[in-house]
């Protein structure tokens, strides 16, 4: 047999196997969640064991947000939405994670986690209910278990056909798994809307939730190709949630449906401030600024919101507060992600400061930050952290004496602060600069 013939046979076999797998994938993708009892098979026991242990892991990592008004709100919404469990291994409990990223997830034994970043981003209680209805549906519909079964069966098929398809089967398995995952997500959205309405929340808020998720101030979230995405694309989700909500809503006035905007924002304000500071720590200052601006708009006389805005502006460094429109293409976003993975924070800042625009931007950001620190101190004169931030910002502007005064004030107000060595180091530089100024002055 000639080499070309062998190769042709392999390609034909690969194509056939691929088509079989793709067909299997489509057949699975048309499946839906199972809302009746789903006994756990022996092969799924390791999955359930890990899932149970995750609860301890989050405690061990200090990842759970301590009990608070926000935690109580999340639990009360979750309990209002969760259907009666049909399996003995499902026991709903709702937790908030300290993570400033926007995300939520559910585990098959009833654990539902909402990350602090998502709670801070939402505008009202109905939007939180939309997220939780979606997640509760993943558990109620046994989506994780069904997806596990799907991956398992496709992996076996991939192993059998793998050697004959020169590895192409892995691609088909991946596509099939992603497709199935998108189907389940779509189902969770659809059922979630009904749950929201039954519990009295306005289902139209689900579309708004997806709209909010589309923002990307730090321009570091390039879109993924639909075929490989585990979730439907957000614009499509907005449209579909809007259309479904319209069909669900009864004719006539809908004022009885709950939205609870003001009360919600009041409850989540302290957590939102913490999220904004967490975003600065995670080097996402533009996102922090967007959140901080919103907090100030909601509570302009609250010193904490002013302080958070000032910290966010200082955290921008040499970055512009809003990414220039010409730097928001998919290529730019991919490049930004790449650079974040390659360069350290100091190197990225140095690269920006090597340009006149970067220098000007940093000056502008620090000046605005100083204004906000002053406002925070006017509202609460005992806020030593604002004094610290003011000192650091003034130092960045070269106003050494003002910087030193503010830092000394902080050091005296917080003698046991953990960041004392950092502030002392700054003060040392300021003192050296002051001495140098005095010596060189005629």
């Amino acid at each position, binding site marked *: 047999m000639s080499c070309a013939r062998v190769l042709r046979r392999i390609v034909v076999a690969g194509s056939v196997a691929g088509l079989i797998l793709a067909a299997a994938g489509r057949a699975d993708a048309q499946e839906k969640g199972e809302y009746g009892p789903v006994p756990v098979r022996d092969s799924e026991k390791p999955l359930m064991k890990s899932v149970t242990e995750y609860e301890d892991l989050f405690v061990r990592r200090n990842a759970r947000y301590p009990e608070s008004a926000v935690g109580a709100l999340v639990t009360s919404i979750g309990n209002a939405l969760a259907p009666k469990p049909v399996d003995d291994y499902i026991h709903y409990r709702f937790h908030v994670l300290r993570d400033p990223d926007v995300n939520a997830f559910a585990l098959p034994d009833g654990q539902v986690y909402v990350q602090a970043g998502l709670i801070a981003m939402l505008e009202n209680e109905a939007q939180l209910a939309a997220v939780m209805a979606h997640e509760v549906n993943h558990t109620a519909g046994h989506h994780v278990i069904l997806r596990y079964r799907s*991956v398992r069966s496709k992996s076996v098929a991939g192993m059998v056909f793998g050697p004959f398809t020169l590895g192409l089967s892995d691609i088909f398995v991946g596509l099939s798994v992603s497709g199935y995952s998108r189907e389940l997500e779509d189902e969770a959205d659809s059922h979630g809307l009904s749950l929201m309405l039954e519990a009295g929340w306005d289902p139209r808020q689900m579309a708004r939730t997806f709209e909010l998720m589309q923002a990307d101030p730090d321009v570091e979230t390039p879109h993924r190709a639909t075929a490989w995405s585990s979730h439907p694309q957000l614009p499509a989700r907005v449209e579909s949630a809007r259309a479904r909500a319209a069909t669900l809503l009864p004719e006539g006035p809908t004022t009885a449906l709950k939205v609870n905007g003001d009360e919600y924002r009041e409850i989540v304000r302290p957590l939102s401030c913490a999220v904004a500071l967490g975003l600065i720590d995670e080097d996402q200052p533009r996102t922090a600024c967007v959140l901080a601006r919103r907090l100030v708009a909601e509570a302009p006389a609250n010193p904490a919101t002013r302080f958070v805005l000032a910290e966010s502006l200082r955290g921008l460094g040499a970055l512009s507060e809003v990414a220039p429109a010409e730097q928001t293409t998919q290529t730019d976003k991919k490049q930004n992600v790449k650079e974040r993975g390659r360069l350290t924070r100091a190197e990225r800042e140095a690269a920006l400061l090597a340009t006149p625009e970067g220098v000007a931007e940093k000056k502008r950001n620090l000046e605005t930050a100083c204004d906000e620190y002053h406002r925070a101190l006017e509202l609460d004169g*005992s806020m030593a952290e604002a004094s610290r931030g003011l000192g650091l910002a003034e130092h960045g502007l070269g106003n050494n004496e003002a910087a030193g005064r503010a830092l000394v004030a902080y050091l005296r107000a917080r003698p046991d602060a953990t960041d004392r060595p950092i502030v002392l180091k700054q003060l040392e530089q300021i003192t050296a600069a*002051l001495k140098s100024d005095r010596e060189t002055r005629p």
Partner: protein
Amino acid sequence: MNLRRLLLVLPVVLAAAFFAPALEAAPKSGTEFMTAGFQTTETRPLRLAVLPAHAQFYKAQAVMTNEMVAEAGALERESAKSIASILEARGYSVRLVTRADIEAIPGGADLLLRFDNRFNEELGKVFKAPKDVRHGRFSVGDPATELARALKVEGLVPMRIVAVGNTAGRAGLVAALSLGMAFVQSYSTMYLGIVHGNGGRLEGYFTGYEPNGLKRMVQEPDKAMAELSDRAMKDLPMAHQVLKPKKKDLEAEAANPGGEQVGDEIIQQFEAAAGKSLAEPAAAAGLETGPPPPAGEPPAGDPPPADNPPAQDPPPAQDPPAEKDPPPPPGNPPPSRREPPPAPGERAPAIRDPAVTG
């Protein structure tokens, strides 16, 4: 033994003798990278806090791979203990930090989380260019300084462990599907950093790889982690042992020196340099109230230290107008010296674009 048999056996014996060291060394490996300051002991922290380890443990079965969360917890505990004992044996003063220690510190949980996140971020970059550790390129930043101060140590030792255990079924399947050409091995790897508590620079980076079996990692995590820790820390110098760094590492150190501790005396030095009384520093900076200066700290306005005689300072009247305008009365925010902040609601009040997952 006749000559013919000897000639047959001899090449095999010689080949085994030649390859044995290589076979012994190949699967077990460890590497280390240290800054010049660490090597010369200039920036080597001697009082260290071994932080709670993070371990991920995957069990690869014939078809699916599952995470072993509880077993990973055992690896975390045992690896931290092993590392602490190795450090102690080499003359370092060690504090093995537990969750209870962290909870005893006000804000400790947040601090540790911030540190861990920053260390993970840096570790991603270290993987790409580990040799740059020698040039002091990587720093965990402020969270390291704060955590070290809270724990009262000079340096921090975070570590990450990844363990993969292949079941016999998996090994058999891989061998069968590859017609005996491939095999899988269970192993654990460790990535350990020594972070300076003043400035947060990554002073040392140590890695280790140990091919320990799944059964051993599950049933004897203490022994498995002791072997891995030994492998990772094999080149850690004794506490006071001076190594000779390369010339280019010394040059990099000179350009980017490690942090030195600054004492509280800098406050008086600043006051002397500022050249005027800071009797009411809190009021000057906008603070209404504040506790009195710590004991031992002279009140503001006291004579400056001898190395900063006031005669060298220009009189206050000549001070540059470095200070801001005085803040306006409360309720009347000062007109911004620069551009006004954007109007409320000017931008979409959203954060970012990841998906809500399930």
